[in-house]
């Protein structure tokens, strides 16, 4: 069966992470996604690692492939009038346009929603930026996902009380925001199939981050409490729940035996001091939490993390290695599900990239392919999508538009 978005055309003017990751979801669902780039202004994600074999280079970023898998790429200078005209013609072809320019930039290039809509009144256009397109600080503000995390309240809440906050790993809102963009686009496509109506969608990355922090926001708004970083992994209301050291360098096992059935099973398995009557009740476990955690850590610290995971799972206690990059690359759950896919790139050879984040039973999803090289499909797209004659393409190339 055809993939859900087969026949849907996406013009991806975005760069770095949020927009490209949104386009990746659509490509996984079968959409034909054309990424617009320029070797004069390469996608900055090409300068971010990991790089194949640790060697930097614009065509060596594995992150780039993971975010742009399955797309086509044309290289044009959109600041040139001829380049701009190509974008407008592609907008006529497109069902969906994605962009992540600093708010205001596309309007100055006369490529804003109203310009695109003139060519295609059914178009669905999604813009994403740190703070959105409206409001007093929107225009001209650019930013990255670490700033989104800081402005959504997430960074403040992660860290050790005796040190500065550390915040979440990486440009966190770059992972959160695509979900809200994609859900909005798919809803708009659904509406358009009934009413023919397109729309403009504006998603602020910092605001999207707040969605994943809603309980903490409510805690402040309803109770007046500002959630503070507390260091420990795990809830202050649940014990035992935490990470415990294992043998080897920086190896940890996460155990959550806060449910009474799980606690009983853990207690039987570890025995020793855990049999003490003071740990019989949740109140006792919380009052003596330090001793409880220490006892469990005393049991874990000489064992291998994987072995503990197996032992605890055999006893039906929720536990998992705190997976690092190596654990993930070896993980049976991911390998058997085919989540890690080998790509074979003509420039650097083999690498792994991730597959789609969900499955559909009837309609397939796109097979995971590598991302395109800069301008790999320029000629193909201009000729096949826009029906441009070869002489015109040659002329554009000559005059430096197709760079």
């Amino acid at each position: 069966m055809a993939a859900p978005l087969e026949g849907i055309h996406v013009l991806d003017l975005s760069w770095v992470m949020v927009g490209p990751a949104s386009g990746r979801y659509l490509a996984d669902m079968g959409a034909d996604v054309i990424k617009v780039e320029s070797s004069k202004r390469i996608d900055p994600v090409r300068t971010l690692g990991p790089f194949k074999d640790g060697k930097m280079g614009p065509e060596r970023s594995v992150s780039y492939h993971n975010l742009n898998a399955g797309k086509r790429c044309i290289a044009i200078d959109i600041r040139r009038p001829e380049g701009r005209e190509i974008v407008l013609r592609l907008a006529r072809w497109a069902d969906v346009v994605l962009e992540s320019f600093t708010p205001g930039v596309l309007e100055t290039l006369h490529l804003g929603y109203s310009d695109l809509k003139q060519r295609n009144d059914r178009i669905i256009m999604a813009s994403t930026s740190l703070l959105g397109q409206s409001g007093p600080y929107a225009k001209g503000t650019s930013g990255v996902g670490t700033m989104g995390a800081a402005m959504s309240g997430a960074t403040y809440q992660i860290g050790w009380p005796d040190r500065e906050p550390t915040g979440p790993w990486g440009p966190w809102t770059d992972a959160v925001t695509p979900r809200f963009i994609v859900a909005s686009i798919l809803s708009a496509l659904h509406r358009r199939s009934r009413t023919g109506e397109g729309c403009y969608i504006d998603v602020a990355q910092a605001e999207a981050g707040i969605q994943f922090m809603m309980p903490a926001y409510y805690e402040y708004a309803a109770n007046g409490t500002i959630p503070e970083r507390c260091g420990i992994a795990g809830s202050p209301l649940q014990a035992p729940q935490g990470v415990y050291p294992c043998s080897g360098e920086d190896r940890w096992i996460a155990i959550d035996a806060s449910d009474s059935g799980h606690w009983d099973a853990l207690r039987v398995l570890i025995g020793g001091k855990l049999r003490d009557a003071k740990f019989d009740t949740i109140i006792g476990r919380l009052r003596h939490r330090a001793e409880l955690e220490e006892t469990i850590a005393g049991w874990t610290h000489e064992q291998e993390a994987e072995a503990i995971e197996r032992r605890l799972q055999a006893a039906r206690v929720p536990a998992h290695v705190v997976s690092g990059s190596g654990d993930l690359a070896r993980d049976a759950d991911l390998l058997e599900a085919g989540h890690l896919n080998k790509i074979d790139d003509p420039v650097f050879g083999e690498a792994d990239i991730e597959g789609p984040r969900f499955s559909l039973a009837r309609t397939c999803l796109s097979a995971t392919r590598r991302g395109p090289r800069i301008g790999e499909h320029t000629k193909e797209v201009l000729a096949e999508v826009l029906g441009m004659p070869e002489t015109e393409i040659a002329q554009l190339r000559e005059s430096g538009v197709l760079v």
Partner: protein
Amino acid sequence: MLDDVRVLEISAPETMLAGRMLADLGADVVVVEPPAGSPGRRLAPFLGDIPGIERSLTWQALNYNKRGITLDLSSPDGKALMRDLAARFDVVIEAAGWGKTSPLDSIEFPPSMIRCTVTPFVRTGPKSEYAATDFTVMAASGSPAMTGDIDRPPLFFLVPQGMMEAGADAAIATLAGLIARDRDGLGQRAGVSARIAAMMSAFGQALVPGSGNPESTRAQGAMVIAGAQAPSVYECADGFALITIGFGPVFGQMTRRLAKWAADEGRLDRRIAEISWSSFISDLMAGKASPQDLQALVDGLKSLARSKSKAEIAEASRRLGLLVSPVMNMMDVAGYVQYRERGLFTPVSIEAGREIDAPARFAQFSNYSIEIKHPAPKLSEHTAQIFEEELGLSKAEIQALFVAGGI
């Protein structure tokens, strides 16, 4: 936008955001709870720090815009009612725990039904039987191993994230199924592994070894470049600021402006400010730049940050175009003029006679607006209404179900 879409959500922590996103986008979402209440109602924090089935703020934040019914899906009555209800809905979303079959397995759904199932690990994979909680799923995602400082244990979010990541991807999977159905009228099953969903926030950690790189190590507190430590969070006059020192053609320009600001404020030697930060890494490798220069920049930024408030830092970041922002706490978020004036917030009732502003508008549309039409349902609030309207049950029949304990 989804006003012709009807969703039954069998409530679990992992379904809550999915159902709410679809409801926010216009779908008619009915959340189905066991008679004793959804596990989502036992998630902290609680209103006034007093627990209670109607007092979970997590429940309230993730269930507004839905209606709620109770139904004992393990009973024959519950199964029969579920089957009859399902015939009138387009989508059912559920979370199946480890090692048990879903109560929906014995129900035959119409062929147009989209059934989305969230599981901790891949439903058919080798860890499908794993005992799991949000905490252990997050441990398996790859991000905690990278979060925090290397001399201390890995750190986790205080707000459970597995349920957020899985819920958001469940909304997307459901919508993908819906778009496919728009074409041919047929439904299907969709599956989301919370672990794989949460790997989105690990930014490709799983790909590091397979591309010929050494395994990653945790170094969140400070990026270490050639022995020089560059922290990401700096103490400022009234809190903290995030300051990113970037390199390369795009981010290096921002570092140049940042260094110039520090020099203009007398906090950094002008010579350091004028270094080519765009090419710093390659210059360093070529021996044309020194790690001491980076250390000097960091020291200057520390001094600069201490002399400024969060508001001053935010203003300079906007004016100069920097990779710098205040580290906002939830009070800052609630009061931020940009969010306020942009219309992020809309009021929602949290108890009788009391409203708060909820940051509800995760997207803004040219011809649609996310609104909170009603607060999260109280336990069984709409049971009688829905059974009467949808299934034509009489008042006596609904009372009989209650007496029998099925609702």
